[in-house]
């Protein structure tokens, strides 16, 4: 906490409960996914988010604000990039993605399409999609 500004702490304190609610809605909307599975999916994408962190994020208990990368990874693993609650989440956190609703719906359609695939295929595809959404160069 020492390296964070007072105003940043205050802002995060004001929004984190709502952020947590939105994150839970994202996870439980559509087909719904468990915290354990989401944690595993995020791990596969290169995130370090444990199941207990997911639980604490959803309860608005974490002190650190969520980064854009984590928000996008979360929504991507829940195949809910086009969900209204994800837009609300981005607005709350003050982030902007340069994609239209139609584009995000296309991403979600692709994500739904691959759900029937074996896990290794899903991981390869999901990683590529994540990097496209975030605008990172392919590695």
């Amino acid at each position, binding site marked *: 906490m020492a390296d964070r500004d007072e105003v940043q702490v205050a802002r995060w304190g004001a929004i984190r409960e709502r952020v947590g609610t939105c994150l839970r809605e994202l996870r439980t909307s559509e087909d719904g996914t468990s915290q354990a599975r989401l944690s595993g999916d995020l791990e596969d994408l290169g995130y370090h988010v444990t199941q207990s962190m997911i639980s604490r994020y959803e309860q608005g208990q974490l002190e650190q604000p969520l980064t854009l990368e984590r928000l996008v990874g979360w929504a991507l693993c829940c195949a809910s990039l086009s969900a209204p609650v994800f837009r609300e989440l981005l607005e709350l956190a003050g982030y902007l993605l340069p994609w239209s609703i139609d584009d995000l719906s296309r991403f979600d359609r692709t994500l739904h399409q691959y759900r029937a695939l074996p896990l*290794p295929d899903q991981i390869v595809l999901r990683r*590529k999609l994540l*990097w*496209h959404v975030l*605008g990172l160069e*392919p590695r």
Partner: protein
Amino acid sequence: MAMILEPERAAQLVADRLARPFGPADFEKDWLVRRTLEELGLHCEGEPNLQDLKGFMIASPRGTEIVVSERLGQDERLGVYAHLLAHALLEQGEDGEEGSFFSRLEYVEGREPAERKGAERKVEMVADALARAILRGRLDGTPQYCYRHKRGSAARAPGLRPRLGRFWLELCHRVSLMLFWHSPKYQRLRARREMSYLVRRVETLVRTAYAC
């Protein structure tokens, strides 16, 4: 944001290079196609971990990527490249317009989703025919409107006669495209060299007769 993918250019260039007399030996075709795609800015890579997928394409304003399973043989890889290009071509709108995101998955035989709608099967059939044309290096063995979406960019002659000529050509191309989408028999007929020659002759004649 505009998608960074020019499937028309890519398909045409790949077909042209595969069609060159004294062109690449069979074992070099895969390399040539990949190199051609990379020249056009499409990032291609092999992936050892794919199981049910032969490969996939993702295109967005961030770039275009083709990922192909490393388990495939050279012919299969060629087929995947051609099929992905064919689908990208079909995805384009009437005027060459496209959304800003496109993705396509190519499944290993027998691993496709069980429930495919009639429309999806039809797209697959047309993509098969287009992919074959690309690999044969003869895109002209398919209707022009399959692989050339931007029409009438050249200066158009004014007047009623040229307009009538353009109308006939447009009508013929549209009918050809419609038949291509609905009839495998027409696809085979259209793929013949004699048919391509005939189509070129008729078009030249109409353009001359109607000064269009």
